[in-house]
């Protein structure tokens, strides 16, 4: 297990470094990073100054190493627009987005896993068909459209839920649903497929031949094995949701990382943009790493290698 974890961790670090290289190179898409950084009121003198201060006159690899070494120390630079340390801004907003993502994932899991299990133990029944229909329909609904519909009904028409902000837990319901429903079909399908496969496996037949109670067979023997791929998928989907939070946070005026990202992109605030890409990517990497560890815990074939 320890060796597996180390190995997996090594890969994660490598991926993180590659991602950092990619997000670093984002800045070169804009042409002259110094000019972009200097902002609107800069004179050519200022730009030269920035070029020197940030080392844009250095070879790219030197710049990268320099940048990375600062990033590793938590210094993402300073946002010209926000007038603050980028790291400070990001870590101020990260919790909101994490909370939103967690709520959305929670919603998705609470909906999809029971549905998937139900569909799998009663294949080709009404429940199964309903679940599948939900999946097909769900995946065809653009999330921003769905979010607006939610606001219209739950927020305005029925006044059940507050629309914007993050003041109370109720504020998170609509955005979480709007963000989470899109991943529900994928998790549901995987749960269903996994359950179907596991339920037809030899060891389930063995368990039944032992005379175990159906609930024991289902939950102890089947679900545990069927859930293993779902864990990885959930981690991947959580990563997607952090990306998707851009749209949702914009609609629900939630002051999280997604909203910051969108603002950042619009105003071309490069250091912040880089930092957000990197932070989200690293978060994803950490998440998949944890998911693999959880899988290893669930699946002794990985754990006891």
């Amino acid at each position, binding site marked *: 297990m320890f060796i597996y974890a180390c190995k997996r961790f090594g*890969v994660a670090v*490598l*991926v*993180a470094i*590659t*991602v950092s290289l*990619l997000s670093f190179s*984002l800045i070169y*898409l*804009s042409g002259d990073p110094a000019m972009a950084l200097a902002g609107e009121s800069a004179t050519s003198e200022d730009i030269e100054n920035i070029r020197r201060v940030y080392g844009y006159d250095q070879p790219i690899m030197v710049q990268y190493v320099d940048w990375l070494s600062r990033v590793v120390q938590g210094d993402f630079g300073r946002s010209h627009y926000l007038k603050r340390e980028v790291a400070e801004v990001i870590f101020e907003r990260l919790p909101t987005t994490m909370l939103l993502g967690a709520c959305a994932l929670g919603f998705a899991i609470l909906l999809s896993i029971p549905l998937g299990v139900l569909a799998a133990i009663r*294949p*080709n029944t009404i429940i199964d068909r309903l679940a599948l229909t939900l999946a*097909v*329909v769900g*995946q*065809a*609904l*653009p*999330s*921003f*459209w769905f979010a*607006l519909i939610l606001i*219209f009904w739950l927020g*305005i028409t029925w006044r059940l839920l507050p629309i914007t902000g993050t003041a109370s837990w109720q504020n998170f319901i609509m955005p979480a649903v709007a963000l989470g429903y899109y991943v529900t079909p994928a998790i549901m399908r995987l749960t269903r497929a996994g359950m179907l496969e596991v339920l*037809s496996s030899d060891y389930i*037949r063995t368990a039944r031949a032992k005379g175990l109670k159906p609930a024991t067979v289902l939950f102890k023997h089947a679900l545990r094995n069927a859930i293993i791929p779902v864990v990885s998928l959930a981690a*991947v989907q959580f*990563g*997607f949701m*952090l*990306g*998707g939070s*851009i*749209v949702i946070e*914009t609609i629900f005026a939630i002051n999280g990382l997604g909203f910051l*990202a*969108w603002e950042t*992109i*619009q105003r*071309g605030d490069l250091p912040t*943009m880089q930092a*957000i*890409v990197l932070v*989200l*990517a*690293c978060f*994803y*990497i950490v998440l*998949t790493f944890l998911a693999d560890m959880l899988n290893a815990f669930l699946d002794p074939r990985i754990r006891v290698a």
Partner: protein
Amino acid sequence: MSAPNPTINGTLAGAPVVAQILEPSPGAILRRRIFGHVGLVLGGAFLVLIIAMALLAPFLAPHDPLDQELSRKLIPPIWHDSPKATWEHPLGTDLFGRDYFSRLIYGSQISLLIGFAAMLISGVIGTTLGVLAGYFGGRVDMVVNFIITTRLSMPVVLVALAVVSLIGNSLWIVIWVLGLLIWDRFAVVMRSSTQQMRNLDYVAAAQALGCSTFRIIVTEIMPNILNNLIVVATVEMAHAILLEAALSFLGLGVQPPAPSWGLMIAEGKGFMFFQPWLIGIPGAALFILILSINLLGDGVRDVTAPENQN
């Protein structure tokens, strides 16, 4: 091992009951399954309709989709019992007095183009990587896996937005950015499918017959993973169309006055409380398009999957 009997395979003790039934040819089975699959037929039919709509747009559309006349703006669709509603504009007009029906028809061209082109680009990248990794394994696999993991860790929407905002936005830039970003699923699925095929004896047989690696991949492996490829292709096509809609919604997708459905939703979104059809109609069109693509994909998976039932 015996002839796989579709109904009971997998659920029984591994020994199918009927040893040998002379089955119809794969083509015949496929045809039978295709036409027996409601979702596939429905999805296919709708998709064909939408494609026809896109191809025949110049003949179908009653107006120029870009023809603007502010004096006839925001005419509601004919089913509204408003005095303004007219058969001249069956789906009404938008804020700029452009005929919504014509825009919808022309919009199918853009959505399909984006979906198809982005899917093609990502398909070529992902399939190449996936098949190579699956076939050669070892170091190649390691490298490809690493690339996939790296790609997966980049948040798609964010990177797409950032890139588009940095290098500018046009239809083709959006297509390329999406195409270069969403190949991961192709790679993952093709990799595992190829791995499965790779270990089958007929690949070894082809090697032993002296087939070149290229020939084996193209004629022995590809035909057998084609069904998975089609399934992923539909998923990614839908994904690309939805992503474009999201980018347009945020103002960084296709640029006006192009009648992309995503853009129409974006333009109509401000009116959702009072002129809901402006967002409802393109939203529904997008929904139906994605739904039919998904149904088609699901259908292809169902009818080609070995464990397929009914």
